[in-house]
């Protein structure tokens, strides 16, 4: 699935480079002299660059969800290991309860943990350590993709994917059409996953006519009323594989799904297309638990992970989009169709306000209401 053509436009690269230079300057100026336990770099760090031999003998356990995703992530960390002399080993799956037990027992064997931004934020300072951004260069990471306790791991979109055989001449263009079963008949697939409520609540509000700038504070009752309106037409998928299968078998005509699953459906021969308008930007996060043996090594690993080359590797090996705006992964034709980080797609998409969703009461309310809705 990898070929030699690049998906990115020149103008975007130029803008991104300009933006990153100015951000880098800002970043370098607030380099506070926090105490260093390892022989870390004294000057401002650059994403993707590691100091040769800096962490010889260190051993970092990288915890994610296995499969091709983790393989791609570990490949992105290979350069860090090679340069610094640290050993990076993989483990998984990334179970939050297990990590919590490790942190509480003060016996932490996981050093870098793949989770999502809201989880990292809600547990920031209790399970995950506050990151020192003088040691991690996030100037090339997409805006809003990092927080006090996390950096992005990858990017994807939750988007409307539709059957082009059914709606080829009159394709849906927004979430409004997803909720309009009169003009766009057929079953809808949604993600019946406890943690996947945010984007679907946002989609319901957008469909109900809320403007993107007026989304917050979220009107939960309005969102669930809209969701209820098509509930009898919804088939829930609780794994990505099931979401994909529902599209491929033609059981549903539209799907609220992950961009990567849309791509896999197309690779498997399904006649599908995605709607970039109002696509909801999502992604995983990487965080470091409190009590890791060598926090500096872990942070240096994150800094390396965010590098241009490293992100190109990650994207080329997985179906996910890079979290370095300079990255130019070599992608196949079909992968280019589904990669989320082109300027046009970024502009058309909706970036959730993760600060809002990470407020403990909102986090809990969203989880409770969403969970009750998908389970009944």
């Amino acid at each position, binding site marked *: 699935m990898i070929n030699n053509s690049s998906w990115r436009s020149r103008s975007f690269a130029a803008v991104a480079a300009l933006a990153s230079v100015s951000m880098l300057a800002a970043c370098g100026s607030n380099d506070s002299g926090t105490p260093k336990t390892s022989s870390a770099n004294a000057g401002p760090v650059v994403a993707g660059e590691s100091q040769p031999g800096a962490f010889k003998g260190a051993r970092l356990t990288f915890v994610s969800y296995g499969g091709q995703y983790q393989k791609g992530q570990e490949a992105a960390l290979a350069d860090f290991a090679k340069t610094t002399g640290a050993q990076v080993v993989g483990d998984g799956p990334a*179970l*939050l*309860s297990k990590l*919590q037990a490790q942190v509480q027992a003060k016996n932490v064997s996981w050093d870098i943990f793949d989770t999502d931004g809201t989880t990292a934020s809600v*547990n920031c300072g209790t399970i995950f350590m506050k990151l020192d951004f003088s040691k991690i260069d996030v100037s090339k990471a997409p805006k809003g993709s990092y927080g006090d306790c996390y950096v992005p791991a990858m990017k994807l979109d939750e988007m409307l994917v539709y059957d082009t055989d059914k709606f080829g001449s009159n394709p849906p263009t927004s979430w409004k059409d997803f909720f309009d079963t009169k003009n766009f008949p057929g079953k809808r697939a949604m993600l*019946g*996953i*406890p*943690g996947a409520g945010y984007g679907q609540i946002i989609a319901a509000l957008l469909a109900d006519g809320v403007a993107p700038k007026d989304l917050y504070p979220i009107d939960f009752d309005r969102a669930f009323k809209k969701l209820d309106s098509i509930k009898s037409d919804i*088939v*829930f*998928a*609780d794994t990505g594989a*099931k979401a994909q*299968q*529902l599209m491929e*078998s*033609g*059981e549903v005509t539209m799907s609220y799904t992950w961009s990567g699953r849309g791509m896999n459906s197309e690779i498997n021969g399904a006649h599908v297309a995605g709607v970039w308008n109002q696509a909801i930007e999502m992604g995983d996060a990487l965080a470091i638990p409190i009590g890791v043996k060598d926090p500096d090594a872990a942070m240096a690993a994150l800094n390396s992970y965010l590098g241009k080359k490293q992100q190109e590797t990650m994207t080329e090996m997985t179906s996910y989009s890079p979290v370095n705006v300079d990255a130019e992964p070599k992608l196949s034709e079909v992968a280019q169709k589904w990669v989320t980080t082109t300027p046009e797609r970024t502009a058309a998409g909706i970036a959730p306000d993760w600060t809002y969703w990470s407020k403990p009461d909102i986090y*809990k309310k969203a*989880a409770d209401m969403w*969970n*009750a809705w*998908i*389970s*009944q």
Partner: protein
Amino acid sequence: MERLDLPVTDTAVAGRPTDHQVGRPLGSDGSNQRPLWVRFAPVLLTLPALALLVAIVGEPLYEVFQRSFTQPKAGLSNYDWFFSSSLNVALLRRTFVTAFVVTVVCVALAVPYVFLMTIVSKRARNLMLFLILVPFWTSTIVRNFAWVLLLQHSGLLHQFMAKFGFDVTLIGTTKGVVIAMSQVLFPFMVLPLYATMSKIDVRLIQAAKSLGARPSVAFAKVYLPLIRPGVIAGSVLVFVLALGFYITPAMVGSSKNSLIAGEIWNQINGLLAWGPGSTMAVVLLVLTLVLLAISGLVIRRSSPLQGGSR
């Protein structure tokens, strides 16, 4: 299967001293003369296992109880939350109904199957046992995934039904979950049932018939009471195991038919809500124990009828 009625034996038996004596044919006279260590040898031998059980079951169980009353704050707030949430009550009801239906399906399929096992040749019986045990020994994930492939839209079963004009969606539905769970739990019904049914003297039925009973009457009045202990033991096993099912509803079903175990997982691993998650586990455990106690009573009540089955 006999293990299951042990915890309730003493209470159930209290009113029946005769049973108690019959159950111990060796009596207590002889054992009094033996050295102390011989008499306590069985107890001593169980100590390692007991210690292991206390450590890996008892302690975590205690922790679960404790957390349900203390996290996030001390008191009964978690139990208030549990019973005032329509989702929790719905999940609890769905869990018990699903387990009950699965049990009924297993009984309905297992009784004729095991009956056939008792009357066919030894080779055929072994084959029938083999057919039960091979899936039993197969990884749960593999078995459940096989069901996903069979049940899914355009899957084998769906295509087969479509040939006859039925467009039945099974994947992601409670029906599909019940089918898959019944298959996964089938061996737990067959094995205790076989243990009981293989020991039934079929001549009893012939005797009933020779005394003038119609076949249906002989079946209902002689055979059914004889197999009842096996049916109850198998049902208890299947029902209790079904109550804790997590993987099958997650893989074959969807969130709409998730059971309480899935929600416990979600509370604890998704939200780190140990208190509420533990509370759900305690409610499930207590209800299960109550049901076990009741079934223990029922087994005791039916025991005078089992005669030659042991």
